[in-house]
Protein backbone atom coordinates (compact mmCIF):
# COMPACT_ATOMS: atom_id res chain seq x y z
CA UNK A 1 0.00 0.00 0.00
CA UNK A 2 1.06 3.58 -0.60
CA UNK A 3 0.34 6.63 1.52
CA UNK A 4 -0.99 9.85 0.19
CA UNK A 5 0.58 12.73 2.05
CA UNK A 6 -1.77 15.26 3.60
CA UNK A 7 -1.39 18.98 3.09
CA UNK A 8 0.19 20.44 6.14
CA UNK A 9 -0.33 24.09 6.95
CA UNK A 10 1.58 27.06 5.64
CA UNK A 11 2.58 25.49 2.39
CA UNK A 12 3.34 28.38 0.05
CA UNK A 13 0.47 29.07 -2.35
CA UNK A 14 2.60 30.08 -5.31
CA UNK A 15 4.99 27.41 -6.46
CA UNK A 16 7.00 27.26 -9.65
CA UNK A 17 5.26 25.13 -12.26
CA UNK A 18 6.64 21.58 -12.50
CA UNK A 19 8.68 21.17 -15.62
CA UNK A 20 7.48 18.74 -18.29
CA UNK A 21 8.67 15.22 -17.71
CA UNK A 22 11.10 13.70 -20.15
CA UNK A 23 12.01 10.16 -21.06
CA UNK A 24 14.23 8.26 -18.69
CA UNK A 25 17.05 8.03 -21.22
CA UNK A 26 16.89 11.74 -21.97
CA UNK A 27 16.77 12.49 -18.25
CA UNK A 28 19.82 10.39 -17.47
CA UNK A 29 21.71 12.01 -20.36
CA UNK A 30 20.81 15.40 -18.91
CA UNK A 31 21.98 14.35 -15.43
CA UNK A 32 25.48 13.69 -16.68
CA UNK A 33 25.51 16.71 -19.00
CA UNK A 34 27.23 20.04 -18.44
CA UNK A 35 24.01 21.90 -17.57
CA UNK A 36 23.28 19.68 -14.55
CA UNK A 37 23.87 21.42 -11.23
CA UNK A 38 23.51 20.03 -7.74
CA UNK A 39 23.28 21.71 -4.35
CA UNK A 40 23.65 19.78 -1.09
CA UNK A 41 22.93 21.28 2.33
CA UNK A 42 22.36 20.02 5.86
CA UNK A 43 20.66 21.32 8.99
CA UNK A 44 20.28 19.93 12.52
CA UNK A 45 16.60 18.87 12.67
CA UNK A 46 14.53 16.01 14.11
CA UNK A 47 17.37 15.41 16.57
CA UNK A 48 19.78 14.48 13.80
CA UNK A 49 21.48 15.80 10.66
CA UNK A 50 19.02 16.27 7.80
CA UNK A 51 20.75 16.47 4.41
CA UNK A 52 19.03 17.56 1.20
CA UNK A 53 20.60 17.10 -2.24
CA UNK A 54 18.81 18.76 -5.15
CA UNK A 55 19.94 18.53 -8.77
CA UNK A 56 18.71 19.64 -12.14
CA UNK A 57 19.30 22.12 -14.90
CA UNK A 58 17.66 24.96 -12.95
CA UNK A 59 19.69 27.96 -11.80
CA UNK A 60 21.60 27.39 -8.57
CA UNK A 61 19.53 29.98 -6.70
CA UNK A 62 16.30 28.22 -7.73
CA UNK A 63 17.68 24.94 -6.40
CA UNK A 64 18.58 26.71 -3.12
CA UNK A 65 15.06 28.21 -2.93
CA UNK A 66 13.53 24.73 -3.35
CA UNK A 67 15.84 23.34 -0.65
CA UNK A 68 14.74 26.19 1.67
CA UNK A 69 11.10 25.16 1.17
CA UNK A 70 11.92 21.51 1.83
CA UNK A 71 13.77 22.34 5.06
CA UNK A 72 10.78 24.45 6.11
CA UNK A 73 8.56 21.37 5.66
CA UNK A 74 10.89 19.29 7.86
CA UNK A 75 10.90 22.08 10.47
CA UNK A 76 7.08 21.99 10.60
CA UNK A 77 7.13 18.23 11.28
CA UNK A 78 9.77 18.86 13.96
CA UNK A 79 7.56 21.51 15.64
CA UNK A 80 4.37 19.43 15.49
CA UNK A 81 5.64 15.99 16.51
CA UNK A 82 8.63 16.49 18.81
CA UNK A 83 8.45 14.61 22.10
CA UNK A 84 11.07 17.01 23.52
CA UNK A 85 9.19 20.22 22.71
CA UNK A 86 6.64 21.13 25.41
CA UNK A 87 4.75 23.16 22.79
CA UNK A 88 4.32 20.40 20.19
CA UNK A 89 0.98 18.84 19.25
CA UNK A 90 2.33 15.48 20.36
CA UNK A 91 3.01 16.82 23.86
CA UNK A 92 -0.51 18.26 23.97
CA UNK A 93 -1.88 14.81 23.12
CA UNK A 94 0.25 13.14 25.78
CA UNK A 95 -0.90 15.63 28.41
CA UNK A 96 -4.56 16.09 27.55
CA UNK A 97 -5.94 13.40 25.18
CA UNK A 98 -6.77 11.24 28.20
CA UNK A 99 -9.11 13.89 29.57
CA UNK A 100 -10.77 15.17 26.38
CA UNK A 101 -10.55 14.54 22.62
CA UNK A 102 -7.92 16.76 21.02
CA UNK A 103 -7.98 18.23 17.53
CA UNK A 104 -4.60 18.09 15.76
CA UNK A 105 -3.28 19.15 12.36
CA UNK A 106 -3.64 16.96 9.27
CA UNK A 107 0.08 16.12 9.40
CA UNK A 108 0.09 14.87 12.99
CA UNK A 109 -3.15 12.96 12.39
CA UNK A 110 -1.72 11.26 9.28
CA UNK A 111 1.44 10.15 11.10
CA UNK A 112 -0.54 8.95 14.11
CA UNK A 113 -2.91 6.93 11.88
CA UNK A 114 0.06 5.43 10.02
CA UNK A 115 1.67 4.52 13.36
CA UNK A 116 -1.50 2.74 14.49
CA UNK A 117 -1.73 0.99 11.11
CA UNK A 118 1.83 -0.38 11.42
CA UNK A 119 1.20 -1.38 15.05
CA UNK A 120 -1.83 -3.44 13.97
CA UNK A 121 -0.09 -4.83 10.88
CA UNK A 122 2.84 -6.03 12.99
CA UNK A 123 0.75 -7.22 15.95
CA UNK A 124 2.47 -4.68 18.17
CA UNK A 125 6.08 -5.21 17.06
CA UNK A 126 6.01 -1.60 15.87
CA UNK A 127 4.86 0.18 18.99
CA UNK A 128 4.37 3.97 19.29
CA UNK A 129 3.69 3.49 23.02
CA UNK A 130 7.14 2.57 24.38
CA UNK A 131 7.95 6.16 25.38
CA UNK A 132 7.59 5.47 29.10
CA UNK A 133 10.48 2.98 28.88
CA UNK A 134 12.56 5.45 26.87
CA UNK A 135 11.81 8.13 29.47
CA UNK A 136 13.07 5.78 32.15
CA UNK A 137 16.30 5.09 30.24
CA UNK A 138 16.84 8.82 29.66
CA UNK A 139 16.29 8.91 25.89
CA UNK A 140 13.17 11.05 26.22
CA UNK A 141 12.32 13.78 28.73
CA UNK A 142 9.88 12.86 31.48
CA UNK A 143 6.53 14.51 30.80
CA UNK A 144 4.51 13.23 33.72
CA UNK A 145 4.91 11.48 37.03
CA UNK A 146 2.78 8.34 36.92
CA UNK A 147 3.77 5.67 34.41
CA UNK A 148 0.87 5.20 31.99
CA UNK A 149 -1.23 2.04 32.18
CA UNK A 150 -2.42 2.11 28.56
CA UNK A 151 -0.89 1.22 25.22
CA UNK A 152 -1.34 2.18 21.56
CA UNK A 153 -4.50 0.03 21.59
CA UNK A 154 -6.13 2.69 23.79
CA UNK A 155 -5.65 5.43 21.18
CA UNK A 156 -8.74 6.33 19.16
CA UNK A 157 -9.08 8.62 16.18
CA UNK A 158 -12.70 9.80 16.29
CA UNK A 159 -14.78 10.02 13.09
CA UNK A 160 -14.47 13.83 13.13
CA UNK A 161 -10.65 13.60 13.22
CA UNK A 162 -9.91 14.13 16.91
CA UNK A 163 -7.61 12.01 19.06
CA UNK A 164 -8.49 10.58 22.44
CA UNK A 165 -6.82 8.12 24.81
CA UNK A 166 -9.09 5.68 26.64
CA UNK A 167 -6.34 5.02 29.17
CA UNK A 168 -3.22 7.16 29.75
CA UNK A 169 -0.59 6.56 27.05
CA UNK A 170 2.76 8.19 26.24
CA UNK A 171 2.82 8.31 22.47
CA UNK A 172 6.14 8.73 20.70
CA UNK A 173 6.17 9.15 16.92
CA UNK A 174 9.99 8.99 16.78
CA UNK A 175 9.91 5.63 14.98
CA UNK A 176 8.04 7.04 12.01
CA UNK A 177 7.97 10.87 11.94
CA UNK A 178 11.47 11.11 10.45
CA UNK A 179 10.31 9.04 7.49
CA UNK A 180 7.22 11.23 7.12
CA UNK A 181 9.36 14.38 7.18
CA UNK A 182 11.60 12.91 4.47
CA UNK A 183 8.55 12.13 2.30
CA UNK A 184 7.18 15.64 2.77
CA UNK A 185 10.53 17.21 1.85
CA UNK A 186 10.78 15.01 -1.26
CA UNK A 187 7.31 16.05 -2.39
CA UNK A 188 8.12 19.73 -1.80
CA UNK A 189 11.26 19.48 -3.94
CA UNK A 190 9.54 17.58 -6.75
CA UNK A 191 6.65 20.07 -6.79
CA UNK A 192 9.21 22.85 -7.09
CA UNK A 193 10.45 21.17 -10.25
CA UNK A 194 13.70 19.69 -8.89
CA UNK A 195 14.64 16.74 -11.08
CA UNK A 196 17.01 14.74 -8.87
CA UNK A 197 16.43 14.55 -5.13
CA UNK A 198 17.95 12.83 -2.10
CA UNK A 199 16.60 13.63 1.38
CA UNK A 200 18.47 11.95 4.22
CA UNK A 201 17.40 12.31 7.88
CA UNK A 202 20.31 10.78 9.78
CA UNK A 203 20.36 7.64 7.62
CA UNK A 204 16.63 7.32 6.85
CA UNK A 205 16.50 8.51 3.28
CA UNK A 206 14.61 8.65 0.01
CA UNK A 207 15.80 9.03 -3.56
CA UNK A 208 13.42 10.58 -6.12
CA UNK A 209 13.61 11.78 -9.69
CA UNK A 210 15.88 11.00 -12.57
CA UNK A 211 19.12 9.95 -10.86
CA UNK A 212 19.37 6.52 -9.21
CA UNK A 213 21.77 6.27 -6.24
CA UNK A 214 23.82 3.61 -4.55
CA UNK A 215 23.50 3.80 -0.76
CA UNK A 216 26.05 2.25 1.58
CA UNK A 217 24.84 0.35 4.64
CA UNK A 218 26.78 1.18 7.78
CA UNK A 219 28.77 -1.78 8.99
CA UNK A 220 27.24 -2.47 12.42
CA UNK A 221 30.62 -3.61 13.75
CA UNK A 222 32.50 -0.57 12.38
CA UNK A 223 29.85 2.09 11.73
CA UNK A 224 32.22 4.62 10.14
CA UNK A 225 32.36 2.44 7.05
CA UNK A 226 30.23 0.22 4.88
CA UNK A 227 30.78 -3.04 3.05
CA UNK A 228 27.35 -3.70 1.53
CA UNK A 229 25.24 -1.31 -0.51
CA UNK A 230 21.71 -1.07 -1.88
CA UNK A 231 20.60 0.63 -5.12
CA UNK A 232 17.67 3.02 -4.98
CA UNK A 233 15.63 4.50 -7.78
CA UNK A 234 12.51 6.36 -6.63
CA UNK A 235 12.61 4.44 -3.38
CA UNK A 236 13.41 4.87 0.30
CA UNK A 237 15.76 3.10 2.70
CA UNK A 238 15.74 3.24 6.50
CA UNK A 239 17.98 1.49 9.02
CA UNK A 240 17.70 0.62 12.70
CA UNK A 241 20.61 -0.51 14.86
CA UNK A 242 21.87 0.15 18.34
CA UNK A 243 25.45 1.30 17.71
CA UNK A 244 24.99 5.06 18.12
CA UNK A 245 22.45 5.10 20.92
CA UNK A 246 23.77 2.27 23.10
CA UNK A 247 25.04 3.42 26.50
CA UNK A 248 25.62 2.33 30.07
CA UNK A 249 22.97 3.62 32.44
CA UNK A 250 24.80 2.72 35.64
CA UNK A 251 23.36 -0.77 35.93
CA UNK A 252 23.29 -2.16 32.40
CA UNK A 253 23.45 -1.26 28.72
CA UNK A 254 20.37 0.36 27.19
CA UNK A 255 19.55 1.64 23.69
CA UNK A 256 16.93 3.80 22.01
CA UNK A 257 15.34 0.65 20.49
CA UNK A 258 12.90 -1.14 22.79
CA UNK A 259 11.47 -4.59 22.15
CA UNK A 260 7.79 -3.95 22.95
CA UNK A 261 7.12 -7.57 23.96
CA UNK A 262 9.88 -7.83 26.58
CA UNK A 263 10.61 -4.12 27.28
CA UNK A 264 14.29 -5.03 26.79
CA UNK A 265 16.73 -2.85 24.84
CA UNK A 266 17.97 -4.06 21.44
CA UNK A 267 21.72 -4.45 21.89
CA UNK A 268 22.87 -6.99 19.29
CA UNK A 269 25.59 -5.84 16.90
CA UNK A 270 23.26 -6.29 13.92
CA UNK A 271 21.37 -3.83 11.77
CA UNK A 272 18.12 -3.93 9.82
CA UNK A 273 17.52 -1.83 6.71
CA UNK A 274 14.26 -1.73 4.79
CA UNK A 275 13.71 -0.54 1.22
CA UNK A 276 10.18 0.64 0.42
CA UNK A 277 8.58 3.15 -1.90
CA UNK A 278 8.20 5.82 0.78
CA UNK A 279 10.38 6.59 3.78
CA UNK A 280 7.64 6.50 6.42
CA UNK A 281 6.91 2.88 5.52
CA UNK A 282 10.62 1.98 5.45
CA UNK A 283 11.16 3.69 8.83
CA UNK A 284 8.27 1.81 10.51
CA UNK A 285 9.17 -1.56 8.97
CA UNK A 286 12.73 -1.62 10.36
CA UNK A 287 11.18 -1.99 13.83
CA UNK A 288 8.80 -4.68 12.53
CA UNK A 289 11.69 -6.75 11.13
CA UNK A 290 13.69 -6.26 14.36
CA UNK A 291 10.96 -7.31 16.76
CA UNK A 292 8.18 -9.27 14.99
CA UNK A 293 8.19 -13.06 14.51
CA UNK A 294 9.63 -13.81 11.01
CA UNK A 295 6.27 -14.80 9.50
CA UNK A 296 4.65 -11.54 10.65
CA UNK A 297 7.59 -9.54 9.31
CA UNK A 298 7.47 -11.31 5.93
CA UNK A 299 3.73 -10.62 5.64
CA UNK A 300 4.13 -6.95 6.54
CA UNK A 301 6.99 -6.55 4.03
CA UNK A 302 4.93 -8.22 1.29
CA UNK A 303 1.92 -6.06 1.99
CA UNK A 304 4.07 -2.92 1.73
CA UNK A 305 6.02 -4.12 -1.34
CA UNK A 306 9.17 -3.74 0.75
CA UNK A 307 12.41 -5.67 1.24
CA UNK A 308 14.66 -6.01 4.28
CA UNK A 309 18.46 -6.25 4.41
CA UNK A 310 19.80 -7.63 7.66
CA UNK A 311 23.48 -7.37 8.57
CA UNK A 312 23.75 -10.15 11.08
CA UNK A 313 26.56 -10.41 13.50
CA UNK A 314 27.00 -12.85 16.32
CA UNK A 315 26.96 -11.20 19.72
CA UNK A 316 26.93 -7.48 20.58
Amino acid at each position, binding site marked *: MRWSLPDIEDRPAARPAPRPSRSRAAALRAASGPGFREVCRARPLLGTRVEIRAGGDAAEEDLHAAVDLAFAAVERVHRLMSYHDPGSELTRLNRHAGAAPQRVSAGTLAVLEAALHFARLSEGAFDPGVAATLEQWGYLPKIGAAPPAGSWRDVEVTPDGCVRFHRPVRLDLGGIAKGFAVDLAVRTLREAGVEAVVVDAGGDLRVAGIVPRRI*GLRDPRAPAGSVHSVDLENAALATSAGYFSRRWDGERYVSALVDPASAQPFLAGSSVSVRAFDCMTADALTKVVLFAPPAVAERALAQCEAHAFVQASPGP
Partner: protein
Amino acid sequence: MNSRILIFPVAAVAICQPALALVYMSVEQAQQLMFKGQSLTAVPVILTAADVSAIERDSGVKVYPGVLRAWKAEDGGYFFVDAVIGKHELITYAVALGPDGKVGQVEIIEYREAYGGEVRSERWRAQFVGKQHGDAVHVGRDIQNISGATMSSEHLTEGIRRLLSIYAMVLAGH
Protein backbone atom coordinates in the same frame (compact mmCIF):
# COMPACT_ATOMS: atom_id res chain seq x y z
CA MET B 1 7.60 -18.27 -1.05
CA ASN B 2 10.68 -16.16 -1.63
CA SER B 3 11.79 -14.40 1.50
CA ARG B 4 11.76 -10.62 1.49
CA ILE B 5 14.51 -10.63 4.09
CA LEU B 6 18.07 -10.79 2.80
CA ILE B 7 20.79 -11.60 5.31
CA PHE B 8 24.31 -10.17 4.83
CA PRO B 9 26.95 -11.74 7.03
CA VAL B 10 29.10 -9.23 8.84
CA ALA B 11 32.83 -9.78 8.57
CA ALA B 12 34.37 -10.86 11.84
CA VAL B 13 37.27 -8.51 11.22
CA ALA B 14 36.31 -4.92 10.52
CA ILE B 15 37.55 -3.63 7.20
CA CYS B 16 39.33 -0.30 7.49
CA GLN B 17 37.18 2.33 5.83
CA PRO B 18 37.74 6.01 5.22
CA ALA B 19 35.75 8.18 7.62
CA LEU B 20 32.73 10.02 6.28
CA ALA B 21 33.69 13.62 5.52
CA LEU B 22 31.38 16.13 3.89
CA VAL B 23 31.92 19.77 3.02
CA TYR B 24 28.56 21.32 2.25
CA MET B 25 29.66 24.88 1.58
CA SER B 26 32.36 27.44 2.24
CA VAL B 27 32.02 30.19 4.88
CA GLU B 28 31.57 32.71 2.03
CA GLN B 29 28.77 30.65 0.49
CA ALA B 30 27.02 30.43 3.86
CA GLN B 31 27.30 34.23 4.27
CA GLN B 32 25.84 34.77 0.81
CA LEU B 33 23.01 32.29 1.46
CA MET B 34 22.03 33.82 4.80
CA PHE B 35 22.69 37.54 4.22
CA LYS B 36 22.05 37.99 0.50
CA GLY B 37 23.78 41.14 -0.69
CA GLN B 38 24.55 42.57 2.77
CA SER B 39 28.11 43.38 3.63
CA LEU B 40 29.43 41.75 6.78
CA THR B 41 32.11 43.09 9.11
CA ALA B 42 34.24 40.72 11.14
CA VAL B 43 33.88 41.29 14.89
CA PRO B 44 36.54 39.92 17.25
CA VAL B 45 35.15 37.65 19.97
CA ILE B 46 37.43 38.25 22.94
CA LEU B 47 36.58 36.26 26.03
CA THR B 48 38.16 36.93 29.41
CA ALA B 49 38.49 34.12 31.93
CA ALA B 50 35.52 35.66 33.76
CA ASP B 51 33.47 35.65 30.52
CA VAL B 52 34.32 32.00 29.89
CA SER B 53 33.15 30.87 33.31
CA ALA B 54 30.00 33.03 33.14
CA ILE B 55 29.13 31.61 29.71
CA GLU B 56 29.79 28.06 30.85
CA ARG B 57 27.52 28.63 33.86
CA ASP B 58 24.78 30.17 31.72
CA SER B 59 24.84 27.63 28.89
CA GLY B 60 26.05 24.53 30.71
CA VAL B 61 28.48 23.89 27.84
CA LYS B 62 32.29 24.03 27.84
CA VAL B 63 33.80 27.04 26.02
CA TYR B 64 36.94 26.79 23.87
CA PRO B 65 38.12 30.39 23.31
CA GLY B 66 39.10 31.19 19.73
CA VAL B 67 36.75 28.74 18.02
CA LEU B 68 33.76 31.03 17.47
CA ARG B 69 34.02 33.56 14.63
CA ALA B 70 31.52 36.42 14.30
CA TRP B 71 30.51 39.01 11.69
CA LYS B 72 28.02 41.87 12.07
CA ALA B 73 25.59 42.54 9.22
CA GLU B 74 24.40 45.96 8.00
CA ASP B 75 20.93 45.38 9.45
CA GLY B 76 22.34 44.67 12.94
CA GLY B 77 22.10 40.90 12.61
CA TYR B 78 25.04 38.58 13.21
CA PHE B 79 26.67 35.74 11.28
CA PHE B 80 28.58 33.11 13.27
CA VAL B 81 30.79 30.16 12.42
CA ASP B 82 31.37 27.68 15.24
CA ALA B 83 32.43 24.06 15.68
CA VAL B 84 31.37 21.25 18.01
CA ILE B 85 33.00 17.91 18.72
CA GLY B 86 30.69 15.03 19.56
CA LYS B 87 31.42 11.44 20.47
CA HIS B 88 31.81 10.41 16.84
CA GLU B 89 31.62 13.61 14.85
CA LEU B 90 33.14 17.02 14.24
CA ILE B 91 30.69 19.61 12.94
CA THR B 92 31.34 23.13 11.70
CA TYR B 93 28.18 25.16 11.36
CA ALA B 94 26.95 28.65 10.58
CA VAL B 95 24.22 30.55 12.37
CA ALA B 96 22.39 33.71 11.28
CA LEU B 97 20.93 35.85 14.07
CA GLY B 98 18.40 38.55 13.23
CA PRO B 99 18.76 42.11 14.60
CA ASP B 100 16.43 40.95 17.40
CA GLY B 101 18.96 38.29 18.48
CA LYS B 102 16.75 35.41 17.36
CA VAL B 103 18.12 32.47 15.39
CA GLY B 104 17.12 32.89 11.75
CA GLN B 105 18.96 30.02 10.07
CA VAL B 106 21.39 27.24 10.91
CA GLU B 107 23.41 25.48 8.20
CA ILE B 108 25.97 22.73 8.66
CA ILE B 109 29.13 23.75 6.76
CA GLU B 110 31.28 20.68 7.31
CA TYR B 111 30.55 17.29 8.83
CA ARG B 112 33.21 14.69 9.65
CA GLU B 113 32.55 11.43 11.28
CA ALA B 114 34.53 8.59 12.75
CA TYR B 115 33.67 5.81 15.10
CA GLY B 116 36.04 5.47 17.99
CA GLY B 117 38.46 7.91 19.52
CA GLU B 118 39.78 9.43 16.28
CA VAL B 119 37.47 12.40 16.26
CA ARG B 120 39.27 14.07 19.16
CA SER B 121 42.76 13.55 17.80
CA GLU B 122 44.54 16.47 16.12
CA ARG B 123 46.00 14.20 13.48
CA TRP B 124 42.63 12.88 12.46
CA ARG B 125 41.21 16.36 12.12
CA ALA B 126 44.28 17.68 10.28
CA GLN B 127 43.72 15.35 7.33
CA PHE B 128 40.66 17.37 6.32
CA VAL B 129 42.27 20.81 6.31
CA GLY B 130 42.12 22.37 2.85
CA LYS B 131 39.35 20.16 1.49
CA GLN B 132 37.12 22.18 -0.78
CA HIS B 133 33.41 22.07 -1.39
CA GLY B 134 32.86 19.93 -4.45
CA ASP B 135 35.74 17.51 -3.82
CA ALA B 136 34.81 13.96 -4.68
CA VAL B 137 31.26 14.77 -5.70
CA HIS B 138 30.15 13.07 -8.90
CA VAL B 139 26.72 12.49 -10.29
CA GLY B 140 26.16 8.80 -10.85
CA ARG B 141 26.57 5.63 -8.97
CA ASP B 142 29.18 6.64 -6.42
CA ILE B 143 28.11 6.22 -2.83
CA GLN B 144 27.23 9.61 -1.37
CA ASN B 145 24.86 8.58 1.39
CA ILE B 146 25.09 5.92 4.04
CA SER B 147 22.04 4.45 5.70
CA GLY B 148 22.48 3.67 9.36
CA ALA B 149 21.12 4.23 12.81
CA THR B 150 20.41 7.85 13.56
CA MET B 151 23.20 9.87 15.08
CA SER B 152 22.02 12.45 17.61
CA SER B 153 22.56 16.16 16.96
CA GLU B 154 22.61 16.89 20.69
CA HIS B 155 26.11 18.45 20.60
CA LEU B 156 25.09 20.89 17.90
CA THR B 157 22.09 21.98 19.96
CA GLU B 158 24.46 22.57 22.88
CA GLY B 159 26.78 24.55 20.60
CA ILE B 160 23.95 26.86 19.59
CA ARG B 161 23.02 27.38 23.26
CA ARG B 162 26.65 28.35 23.99
CA LEU B 163 26.71 30.68 20.98
CA LEU B 164 23.54 32.49 22.12
CA SER B 165 25.04 32.87 25.55
CA ILE B 166 28.23 34.41 24.11
CA TYR B 167 26.11 36.72 21.96
CA ALA B 168 24.02 37.86 24.92
CA MET B 169 26.96 38.43 27.28
CA VAL B 170 29.68 39.73 25.03
CA LEU B 171 28.30 41.04 21.73
CA ALA B 172 24.71 42.27 22.07
CA GLY B 173 24.45 46.02 22.58
CA HIS B 174 28.12 46.66 21.78
